[in-house]
């Protein structure tokens, strides 16, 4: 394995997270539920990694910890070699700029009453980033393949695919090193999905970005990433290259996900169901 030579930008080490449950009886001790159980997860520059699992497997919590929205109860979140939660303010600021997120539903992730230009500048303003913002805007728009005229318009004037490009552009504005994309294509039409997946792949290659791609659909993750972690019941049950997972799944959860993938080819051969 080449694992030892890699130098991850962003990593989770032994992260365990549990939530308290409502007491079922007055005398029973309050029970808790482990959402994440000793998770190790990392991403390097120029690498796209995938995280797949059914809903309820812990993807959302893992994502929230990865982008620093939630503090891990046990374990560490490491960015560029430093523990994010015990870092200096300057280091945390750098973390916040360098790890950006693309959310699932592009219609909901942009304020309907805010012009695209303003929305794109939001991260620059709130993260207090210096420099020529207008020049940066034009750069980023070109990277995601949108026209400058978009800046003056409102979200409802765009289609879902365009809005997802805009959301990606917003995430790219602070010039991040890691992009975390949570189900970025599941709300999009098939023909548009391919556009966005290709865009994400190009960005990883051209900008040397680390991409964390979270989804429930193994085939979409497999196309976009080169290493996939399968999460089930709060544990990472299998890590591997997409082709390996598809052809030789070992964990039961992986087999379920592989089995769930429907393809046109299988359908035509009458083997799908």
């Amino acid at each position, binding site marked *: 394995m080449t694992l030892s030579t890699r130098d991850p930008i962003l990593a989770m080490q032994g992260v365990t997270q549990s939530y308290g449950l409502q007491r079922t009886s007055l005398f029973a001790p309050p029970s808790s539920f482990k959402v994440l159980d000793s998770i190790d997860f990392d991403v390097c520059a120029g690498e796209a990694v995938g995280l797949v699992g059914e809903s309820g497997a812990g993807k959302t919590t893992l994502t929230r910890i990865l982008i620093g*929205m939630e503090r891990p109860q046990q374990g560490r979140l490491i960015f560029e070699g430093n523990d994010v939660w015990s870092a200096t303010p300057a280091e945390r600021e750098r973390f916040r700029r360098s790890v950006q997120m693309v*959310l699932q*539903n592009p219609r909901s992730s942009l304020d*309907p*009453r805010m012009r695209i230009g303003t929305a794109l500048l939001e991260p620059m303003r*709130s993260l207090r980033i210096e420099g020529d913002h207008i020049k940066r805007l034009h750069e980023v728009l070109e990277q995601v393949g949108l026209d400058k005229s978009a800046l003056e318009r409102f979200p409802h004037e765009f289609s879902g695919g365009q809005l997802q490009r805009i959301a990606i552009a917003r995430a790219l504005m602070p010039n991040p090193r890691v992009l975390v994309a949570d189900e970025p294509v599941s709300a999009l039409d098939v023909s548009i999905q391919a556009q966005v997946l290709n865009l994400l792949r190009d960005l990883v290659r051209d900008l040397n970005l680390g991409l964390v791609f979270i989804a429930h659909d193994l085939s979409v993750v497999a196309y976009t990433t080169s290493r996939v972690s399968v999460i089930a019941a709060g544990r990472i049950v299998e890590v591997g290259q997409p082709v390996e997972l598809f052809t030789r799944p070992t964990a039961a959860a992986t087999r379920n996900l592989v089995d769930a993938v429907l393809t046109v080819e299988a359908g035509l051969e009458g083997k799908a169901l």
Partner: protein
Amino acid sequence: MSAIATNKPAKSRRRPRWLSNTALLLGIVISVAFLAIALLSAFYLPHNPNVPRIPDRLLPAGSPGYVLGTDVLGRDILSQLMVGARTSLLVGAGGALISLIIGTVAGLSAAAFGRIADETISRGADILLSIPGIVTALVLAATIGSGALTTVLALSAFFTPSFTRVIRSAAMSVLQEDFITAARLYGRPTWFILLRHILPNVAGVIIVQFTLFFAAGILTEAGLSYLGVGVTRPSISWGMMLNEAQQQVGISSPLAMWPGLAIVTVVLGLNLLGDGLRDVLDPRLSRRGA
């Protein structure tokens, strides 16, 4: 396309769009006319509405000098209605405005500042709502005396909890949206998110609620004045006119008709305006490509 000619009537329970626009238009016309009359009454009145002229008492509508006739003491009905419009405007808009301001602040705080704030504000609103508005008004009238200001205070106490609830739930649904998550990710503080993202997105709700509470305020004010705990002379209110006129029912029935008509028209106009605005302002109902 000949197919369209064979249109079958739309299977609809809701109004078609043109009707909703006509309703909005009607609402705007009535509301503007009402505002204009109320403003005009401050500068011009045909007669002094409080000075009795016994020789001219109980003149029918259309009498020379008295367009809508006079009441039992010979006071001009039209002038009274005009002053009444001003009272309705001040009291209704005043009550709605105060509850708008308090309700918006409280509702947004309840939605955004965590569970303790939410519980405190929501339970407080529940308690206020459990006290009947008329009781509040009577207590206020008994303690600080009846009058326009008392009525405004009573109305605010009555409307603020409802306003708070509406704004809270509207803000809650905006808070669910991903763009709020995005703003939080960029480290925006809650007050910024409230002002920059949530307020503009609930502005439509606020405006609509304002017009509806405005109408309800006019109605409530008329009710209170009719019961004698609202406005008293020399101020004039439509409710008070109704009260005075009911003693003349049978002798001169149209006396009760004019203020009643005024109340119905203005309340209807404001409600039409509110409903129309709701349709226009709701981005989910606005027309998209497909």
